[in-house]
């Protein structure tokens, strides 16, 4: 099946065409409720009219913070019809995350909802109101569904915006106009808003529907949030292109997904690898209940071949693997229904029609097939740039329209692409390149392993060493030797982890493993700074700053001032060796802030139980309590520290020290990334 009609069209036109072709076909389902294509077309046009009547103009940004509910789909089409640019934000993001995404996009209106029970007590409408005070451009807050906040005059009810469609001005958007700004994260974790066009998104959706051979009788399951490109393009728009049904899933849960597959006859099941792993491992998993499944896409993270094979076998369907990125609307390559077993499980397939790819070396020169380099993509689907960020745009998009993906890949001679890792994460060990993702995939398939992350840490001889951080499944008895033996059978010798360390949990702020934090947990290499008495802000902050009422100001002064000169000389990886009384008294908030800002990676102290150190753990400093090390280290000595193992080596003298082991709960606090993350876990446990 090809969908040529949709190769050059807008999101609004897509719906209008389908509402004419299949007016009575069901488009959206939520439990017992049904919306036909005609229903959605009417509601979207009505909402578009209402939004325009508010005074919103084409090109204005419309932010959306909603779960995967039918009103979200209506809103997406309404924004398109009104010429507004959609700025979707994941419902799991907190206020700070949302504000960071609105700083440049400056939305004039925000559509949100109130369902605190589902979101740890967070009322998104209250948050929206708070944000309005900080965002002068944000004029309108629209609430979906009934709630107590809804009664406030300052909040507009979604239903009240459904106006007579006669009031809707004719469509203004063209296929090359921006339809949405969807955020990805830069190398420093900063959000960047990729501008995606109507034509790019719809055609990308059509291309995926073509690969999956979708038709009107298909039933899609809305697993992935519509706030990201996978959810909006590969699921929602692909479904619309096929004129198929979309079963809405406001809150993803594996048992709920399995129930809906069984009860609604889902044919297209897509998701990130974790979703498939959760579904396959769930106690409710029943292969016979997946009988209706036909195909779907696994994407969004490296897809372990063993997991793809399991899903294809146990769910008995032709699961495809996709590769893409937000900046490409998102799909670049995808496997095909008739791929052989190796291509289908170990590659990301071939590029979609009219999307070009190439692999380049670090000088930007194109490499022949079979050689490994950074994957670049060009085509209708590539973003026009990052919103209000020409610098970031120039880093990834060249003048010829090539998008640098940051992913390292090999294009095999016969066409399929294999992704080998992230450019920024490659470990260089003794001249060999090691891809953490590849090693992690192997370790995750090791029996007894629940989670794994691999990081490179500095080493004098090899340049870098490979450290594997493993979380075991409950009651699993897995030794480091077992894990190494498993890895040795499956990895080339140079890629085997140098060391296996066991963790209670991996730090996942915002859901992604923080490798920077982990790196500092496993190995640090630098010089020592030795301090005796009274390393305290009372010593390093001159008195003229002491009468500020704002402790944060003190931390800044601490960095600026000549008295704190030592703070400026420290380098990342350096270690403070504290003889005593480190940061006592009033400075307990300030000293760690300043020291962390200076980049110091660890503190070895006679007694780490001083009040301030706990804050330090919280900001990521691994602290070790080791009186012998303190006595045996002189200022300037070259030091190597393995905080997670409690090992301190003085490379200048050749001495090695073992710090006291942490008790379980403390280890957990450190492993999860600090006291606040720990509190969050504990609160979640309590509410369960």
């Amino acid at each position, binding site marked *: 099946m090809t969908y040529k009609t949709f190769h050059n069209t807008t999101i609004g036109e897509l719906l209008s065409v389908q509402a004419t072709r299949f007016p009575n076909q069901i488009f959206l389902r939520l439990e017992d409720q049904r919306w036909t294509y005609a229903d959605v077309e009417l509601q979207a046009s009505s909402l578009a009219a209402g939004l325009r009547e508010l005074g919103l103009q084409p090109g204005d940004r419309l932010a959306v913070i909603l779960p995967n509910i039918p009103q979200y789909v209506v809103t997406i089409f309404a924004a398109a019809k009104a010429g507004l640019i959609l700025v979707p934000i994941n419902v799991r993001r907190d206020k700070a995350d949302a504000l960071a995404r609105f700083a440049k996009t400056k939305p004039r209106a925000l559509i949100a909802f109130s369902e605190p029970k589902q979101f740890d007590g967070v009322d998104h409408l209250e948050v929206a109101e708070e944000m309005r005070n900080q965002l002068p451009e944000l004029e309108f807050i629209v609430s979906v569904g009934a709630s107590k906040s809804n009664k406030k005059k300052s909040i507009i009810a979604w239903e009240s915006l459904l106006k007579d469609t006669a009031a809707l001005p004719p469509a203004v958007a063209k296929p090359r106009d921006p339809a949405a700004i969807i955020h990805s994260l830069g190398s420093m974790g900063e959000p960047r808003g990729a501008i995606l066009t109507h034509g790019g998104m719809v055609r990308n959706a059509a291309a995926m529907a073509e690969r999956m051979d979708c038709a009107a009788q298909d039933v899609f399951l809305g697993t992935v949030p519509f706030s990201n490109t996978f959810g909006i393009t590969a699921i929602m728009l692909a479904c619309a292109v096929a004129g198929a049904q979309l079963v809405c899933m406001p809150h993803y849960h594996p048992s709920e997904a399995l129930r809906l597959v069984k009860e609604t006859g889902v044919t297209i099941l897509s998701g990130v690898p974790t979703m498939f792993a959760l579904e396959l491992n769930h106690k409710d998993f029943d292969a016979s209940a997946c009988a209706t499944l036909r195909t779907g896409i696994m994407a969004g993270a490296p897809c372990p071949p063993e997991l793809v094979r399991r899903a294809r076998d146990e769910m008995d369907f032709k699961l495809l693997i996709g590769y893409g990125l937000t900046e490409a609307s998102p799909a670049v390559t995808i496997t095909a229904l008739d791929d052989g077993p190796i291509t289908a499980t170990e590659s990301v397939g071939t590029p979609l029609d009219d999307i070009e790819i190439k692999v380049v070396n670090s000088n930007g020169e194109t490499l022949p097939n079979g050689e490994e380099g950074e994957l670049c993509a060009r085509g209708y689907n590539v973003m026009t740039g990052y919103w209000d960020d020409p610098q970031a745009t120039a880093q990834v998009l060249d003048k010829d329209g090539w998008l640098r993906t940051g992913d390292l890949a090999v294009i095999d001679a016969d066409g399929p692409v294999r992704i080998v890792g992230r450019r920024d994460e490659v470990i260089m060990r003794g001249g060999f390149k090691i891809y953490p993702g590849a090693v992690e995939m192997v370790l995750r398939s090791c029996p007894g392993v629940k989670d794994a992350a691999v990081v490179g840490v500095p080493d004098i001889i090899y340049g870098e060493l490979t450290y594997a951080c493993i979380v075991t499944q409950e009651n699993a008895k897995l030794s480091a030797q077992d894990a190494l033996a498993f890895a040795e059978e499956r990895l080339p010798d140079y890629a085997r982890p140098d060391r296996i360390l066991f963790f209670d949990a991996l730090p996942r702020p915002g859901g992604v493993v923080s490798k920077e934090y982990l790196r500092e947990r496993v190995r640090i290499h630098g010089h020592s700074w030795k301090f005796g008495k009274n390393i305290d802000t009372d010593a390093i902050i001159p008195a003229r700053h002491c009468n500020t009422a704002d402790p944060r100001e003190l931390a800044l002064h601490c960095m600026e001032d000549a008295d704190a000169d030592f703070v400026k000389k420290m380098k990342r990886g350096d270690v403070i060796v504290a003889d005593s009384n480190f940061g006592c008294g009033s400075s307990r*908030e300030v000293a760690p802030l300043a020291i962390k800002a200076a980049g110091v990676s660890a503190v070895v102290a006679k007694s780490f139980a001083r009040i301030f150190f706990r804050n330090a753990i919280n900001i990521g400093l691994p602290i070790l309590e080791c009186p012998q090390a303190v006595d045996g280290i002189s200022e300037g000595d070259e030091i190597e520290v393995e905080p997670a193992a409690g090992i301190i080596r003085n490379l200048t003298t050749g001495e090695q020290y073992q710090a006291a082991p942490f008790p379980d709960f403390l280890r957990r606090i450190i492993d999860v990334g600090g006291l606040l993350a720990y509190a969050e876990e504990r609160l979640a446990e309590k509410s369960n």
Partner: protein
Amino acid sequence: MAHTLAEKILAEKCDQKKLSPGQFINARVDLVMASELSGVLAIEEFEKIKGARVWDPQKVVFIMDHFTPAKDIKSAEIVKQCREFANQHGIRFYDVGRAGIQHILLPEQGMIVPGDLIAGADSHTCTHGFIGAFGTGVGSTDAAVAMALGELWMKVPESIKFVYHGKPRKWVRGKDLILHTIARIGVEGARYQAMEFTGEALQYLDMSDRFSMANMAIEAGAKAGLFAADDMTRAFIRARGRQDGLYLQSDPDAEYANVYEFDVTEFEPFVAVPFIPENVKPVSQLGDVEIDQAVIGMCTNGNLEDLRAAAEILKGHQIHPRVRAVVIPGSQKVYLDALKEGLIEVFIEANCSVSTPTCGPCLGGHMGVLAAGEKCISTSNRNFRGRMGHVSSELYLANPYVAAASAIAGRIISPEEL
């Protein structure tokens, strides 16, 4: 297994029968306290915890005392932030005119009893050991997590025992005992240890003396400074409307990291000279130190008994023409009681300024900040460089008798010299 007082309190808070120094515990707290200075940071941290609510609004208290009444716009805004947070979460909130310095206010309002574990986002939270409660200063992140979970993790400290023998002479108070003790062991002498104060000399001292001693335990680096609650404590607590509490004592054979014995009969008032509280000299050996300012009160010596001591000296005198004196009662109640007793009249007639309760000058905030080169005698607890103002100003720590006598003389003297 024999336990010290500190170990017994902590064992109660984590339901352990046995507890040894060095053990890590996650303990239930009875109260979490913050001022505006630490509160604003605690709020920031608290709000980072997704889904966090205050675990028990009755057990979380914010007391606005450091830069209040707001000394500038920034302090006003920080207090405002704390006020809004308190309203939102329904926690106990003490503002200007209804408050006092946190360590004086908590026991005065009957908010704590012996055996309590108090996590205070202020280093002088160790003060509450004066009634036999384990008070300890915590960082704002700890305070935030304690607000959310009602728990505080810590390492069980070793204990050091201090035994005071003999009857102190007139003009010698708890402040002198603790200054002498810090001089003996140094500002690191009790690092991460619990100081336990005992001995028959205590019977000649009152609760305000215990207050000053426990208050300055942190100046020796201690995690807590404790007195076993006794009949004097019971009377104090009952007068504040509380009948409950855990009246615990160390076991006779409990193990201490160290035991120090002092004969206080020969003590004279002591003064800590710049720039560290362990630089302590007997007032008679100080030489000629002219002063520009005297500050009496605040937390360390801001109880009614302390103001009585100062008034006893100042009555019928006027302070030296060159000297400014600032009297800071520890709370609104202390202020009112002092007014009813006629103490405030004595201060004003002596040309002292009397301030509303605040930490103010103690940390160089406001209400008596020093200019370059100025010298000040103060009943506060820290004399670090620049603590009360300019980096070249000097601060001398002493008891209220000495501070008042020095204000009259214009130089630091013993009350005996008057």
